[in-house]
């Protein structure tokens, strides 16, 4: 049961939103989670296994749904938020179906969208049948079925292409999506586990193994699984007559162009902001980063607060993050929200007392 009448609305029921809801619920606040899809869980629902320890995504989903033992939040699905408007010191959250909610404070956890790999036309996504994205592969892995290419054959040589839609001014995104490097290593190992005879090559510009046990997984990919890493950005992919794919890159460490044939190419597409997040942000007069993610007030000391008092942000709507980082970020945001609510409550009471005295 809520011990505090102040109302918190969380927009987005993915990992960040659910983790924050359980923290705020435990702290005694009345919380409403608005999820646009018919089910909470966000992109964890698509994902099969999580790096770096190959944990089933279900384990994290269970953790998130087990967080609601005391004071569970009200969760609304199919609730698509269109705008957040300040109103009488509170915030009004408008839904696409005309419903509206009043909140003392709002947490935006609307997540990210996968970069549309079709935009990198030179890689042939949706043109060549055996060019897929990391999302497509993850969905295939989750079915547990053997990995097959379009013709129903087992692929013998597979390429992963890093930085698709990231660190690329031509794609409009100069930032690094951070988690694709380790995802490429994770998925390369998963392919080798299922297809030990397949050859797997990762084409990279830099490998950014920033997290705990990421570098170890990269070493494991080379030592245990024999994955080959070629430093060089792929310039183009063309389809051969037999539907195999010819790929061109520079093997930058030898300083020579290279051409290779593949049965399957996996594009490690980056993270971009959800268009809906941008709309919500604009309606609440929030500021954006250069990559069009929601901007925190300060990049060191207040990443979860925004320029609009009472509106907080967490997770991948503010920058590309891993699942672990997203959960940490959500918890950090709740601490800031609670202090803001307490201060606001005190000043609200003080102003009432002052008015009574006058």
């Amino acid at each position: 049961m809520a011990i505090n009448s102040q109302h918190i609305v969380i927009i987005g029921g993915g990992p960040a939103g659910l983790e924050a809801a359980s923290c705020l619920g435990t702290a005694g606040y009345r919380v409403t989670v608005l999820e646009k899809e018919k089910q909470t869980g966000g992109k964890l629902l698509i994902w099969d296994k999580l790096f770096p320890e190959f944990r089933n995504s279900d384990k994290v989903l269970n953790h998130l749904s087990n967080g609601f033992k005391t004071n569970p939040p009200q969760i609304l699905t199919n609730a698509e938020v269109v705008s957040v408007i300040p109103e009488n010191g509170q915030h009004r959250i408008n839904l696409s179906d005309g419903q509206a909610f009043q909140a003392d404070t709002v947490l935006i956890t609307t997540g990210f969208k996968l970069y549309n790999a079709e935009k990198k036309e030179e890689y042939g996504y949706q043109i060549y049948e055996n060019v897929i994205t990391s999302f497509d592969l993850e969905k295939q892995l989750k079915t547990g079925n053997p990995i097959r290419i379009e013709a129903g054959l087992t692929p013998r040589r597979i390429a992963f292409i890093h930085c698709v839609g990231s660190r690329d001014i031509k794609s409009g995104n100069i930032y690094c999506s951070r988690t694709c490097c380790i995802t490429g290593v994770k998925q390369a190992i998963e392919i080798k586990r299922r297809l030990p005879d397949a050859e797997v090559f990762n084409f990279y510009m830099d490998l950014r193994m920033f997290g705990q046990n990421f570098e170890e997984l990269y070493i494991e990919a080379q030592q245990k699984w024999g994955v080959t890493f070629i430093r060089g950005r792929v310039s183009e992919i063309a389809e051969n007559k037999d539907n195999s794919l010819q790929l061109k890159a520079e093997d930058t460490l030898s300083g020579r162009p290279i051409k290779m044939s593949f049965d399957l190419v996996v594009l490690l597409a980056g993270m971009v902001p959800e268009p809906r997040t941008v709309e919500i942000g604009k309606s609440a007069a929030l500021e954006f980063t250069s990559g069009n993610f929601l901007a925190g007030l300060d990049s060191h000391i207040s990443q979860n607060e925004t320029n609009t008092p009472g509106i907080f942000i967490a997770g991948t709507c503010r920058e590309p993050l891993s699942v672990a980082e997203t959960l940490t970020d959500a918890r950090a945001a709740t601490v800031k929200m609670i202090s803001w609510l307490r201060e606001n409550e005190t000043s609200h009471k003080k102003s009432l007392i002052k008015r009574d005295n006058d």
Partner: protein
Amino acid sequence: MKDWGYSILKGRQIDFENNDFSIAEYITKHEPSFRWCIGCGSCTATCSAARLTDFNPRKLKLLIQRGEIKGLADEIAKCMLCGKCQLVCPRGINTRNVIQNIKRALNTCHAL
């Protein structure tokens, strides 16, 4: 016939499909750490031979893995087996044994 100085240049592109991987396979089989390289170049930086010649152990290893083995015997002859590369390698590759196995592979697989 006057030679006009034109000749057919061999392409510089690494043609992966048509290259020779027998040496790379031999080395990997006998010294699996051959695969662990991340191309940092510290071996070349410390290499006594590289200081005096164009010998480049990082590039040598890479070209073998790409199946580019033309002129390998002449290249490997530049190595003095001092083993300094092994001291500096951050991945702990047994570089001296890699070199020894390149020599063995050349004798076993090819008469290059």
